């Protein structure tokens, strides 16, 4: 199997099926990708939400030292086998100085190509890399062209998709911001969208918090421009785009919240350093903070105990403060 560099020719579009693994950056770019392929009238298929089977498949494909999110991702890719002609695996390296992604997202297409070299699908990729001066727009247009679409068709599709994805995200952020204003105990869950949104590993935590009368809020849904600025103030050399959004989001909302859960997967390269920095800087803000690390082995019992005691701490603090005011 090889990465697609198909010579320019018309392909029977009705027949192409592009698979999208429901993991990693899919949660960030879902609308963009979906509407891009829709506009080009390419059929897409998305893998089912993570379940035990995805996890097992992924663990079998992955190197044991890879992070849990990567194992899940590879499980999703594996489950697309036989269901599509291409699997979309973009390479997203960076968006400029101090706006880089985890190196895993640089390696992803080649990694998938090597691990799944005997599979029936091909890897469809686009390359976002500031050192090569290719931004998302150009890269996605080039990808469509490699599939046989004309430049203008591709450009139009990107325009539609970009607009749709911006609108969808703005709305998500707007709804998320409302949560900060609600009455009640509010806990911000700070984690990458592929952790917080994952049905199998992230969602149960949100459900548990809700069941216990807490309003859980996602840190990663935030006005990205503002968050990048706030993060630069909080930590000048922090260079990972995803971490900067989260750190910035926390800095912007500290005053509105009652607790923070740093939700991370084992062993996340970014979080291993950034969460330590957050905890060190948090000493001044003195907001109760819980670090939760998810790994492939963990059952839910241990997590629930820790969440339960964390909620107790926050509730007690709240009661004490109310007392003080009286």
């Amino acid at each position, binding site marked *: 199997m090889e*990465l697609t560099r198909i010579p320019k020719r018309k392909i029977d579009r009705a027949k192409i099926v592009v698979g999208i693994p429901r993991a990693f950056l899919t949660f960030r770019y879902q609308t963009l990708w979906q509407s891009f392929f829709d506009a080009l009238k390419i059929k897409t298929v998305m893998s089912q939400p993570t379940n035990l089977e995805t996890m097992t498949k992924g663990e079998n494909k992955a190197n044991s030292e890879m992070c849990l999110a990567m194992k899940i991702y590879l499980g999703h890719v594996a489950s697309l086998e036989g269901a599509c002609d291409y699997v979309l695996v973009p390479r997203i390296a960076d968006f400029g100085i101090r706006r880089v992604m985890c190196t895993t997202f640089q390696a992803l297409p080649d990694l998938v190509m090597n691990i799944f070299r005997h599979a029936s699908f091909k890897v469809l990729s686009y390359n976002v890399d500031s050192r090569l001066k290719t931004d998302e727009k150009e890269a996605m247009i080039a990808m469509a062209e490699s599939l046989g679409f004309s430049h203008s068709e591709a450009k139009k599709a990107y325009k539609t998709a970009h607009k749709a994805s911006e609108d969808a995200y703005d709305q998500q952020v707007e709804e998320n911001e409302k949560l900060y204003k609600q009455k009640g105990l509010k806990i911000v869950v700070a984690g990458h969208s592929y952790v917080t949104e994952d049905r199998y590993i992230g969602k149960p935590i949100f459900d548990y918090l809700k069941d216990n009368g807490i309003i859980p809020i996602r840190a990663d849904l935030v006005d990205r421009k503002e968050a990048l600025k706030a993060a630069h103030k909080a930590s000048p050399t922090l260079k990972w785009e995803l971490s900067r959004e989260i750190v910035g989001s926390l800095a912007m909302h500290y005053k509105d919240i009652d607790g923070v859960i740093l939700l991370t997967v084992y062993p996340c390269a970014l979080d291993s350093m950034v969460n330590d920095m957050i905890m060190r800087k948090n000493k001044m803000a003195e907001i109760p903070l819980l670090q939760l690390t998810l790994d492939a082995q963990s059952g839910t019992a241990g997590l629930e105990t820790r969440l339960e005691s964390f909620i107790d701490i926050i509730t007690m603090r709240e009661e004490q403060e109310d007392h003080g005011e009286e």
Partner: protein
Amino acid sequence: MAKSEELKVAFPMIANYNDVVRYFVEVGMNQTYIRQPKMTRRTMKLGAKYAPDMVCTPFKTILGSMIEALEAGADTLIMVFGYCRLGYYGELAERILRDLGYEFNYINMADYTTGKYKDYLKALKKINPKAKKIGMMKAGLEALKMMQNIDAIEEYYYQNLGFCEDPVKYKSIYTRFMHDMHKAKNSEDINEGYNKALEAFQSIPVHKGELPLKVAVLGEYFTVMDEFSNFNLEQDLAMMGVEVHRWMNVTHRNLHYPGEKNLHPRIQEYCQYEMGPTSSANIWYAKECAEKGFDGIIHVKSAGCTPEIDIMPVLSRISSDFKIPILYLTYDAQDGDAGFQTRLEAFYDMIEMRKKVNI
């Protein structure tokens, strides 16, 4: 050139390169350089105690050696940056040290990554604002020369040590050379030390036979170069009677790097893109050595080094395509070296037997 303000400058321990920094600070910047003691288990323990648990191991050793530098009397620390987590080492290490109550000047090169090279000059100005550009340039070039010499001597040493008549003398020449670099005050000293070492090496007969065992050592930038971090891997391997080849050093990776543009055409069947800061180089070198008929490859990395973990599937493919054995070694803060020794011996036995069978 006047010392504007007396600083005692230190740099974290990185392989054998500290004297390169020392030379530049002393000769180019006219400031005092403080050299912390060589790294020991204490360095590692100190680092592991204060660093976050899941961070890659080099952060822990670097943090430990920064603490030891401050204990040795340094008041100014210089820190480098890189494309992976190394880019954030500087800021987090500073935060941790300040939280521990240390007071010091800090020059974090990551603060000056703006995309313009001239901004790095601003960082140097902080060490000595009165330092002349010309003097800095001259000392800089001489320091680079020293670095290349160190890399060349290391390369020569590990490729021949296993086959020379007097390994003890060989080792002492190597140590002597490092000592000479430690004492070097000008470019004559640098050249003389190098020539002396090379001559001394060549005076000792080497018997390699027709087909010596050849092993390529590659992997993560810091751990593969730093003998403390990899438990003297190359020394042990060479002493078993192996020609040890390592491409990864600062000369090759930073000074004369062929670039992805030149490396990628040679590894097209394995990867299309750059997979991480040292990935292309490692994949290329693994393939190159496999093609040249090396007997084995050892892949070295610290625990949790994401870019190196990500190329392991590619290396495994090279291993099966070229029928070359690869030993994967992962180093973390808790390890003793006994386990590594056993694995290394087993690996050696295996490649030696393969060689006999194949001949």
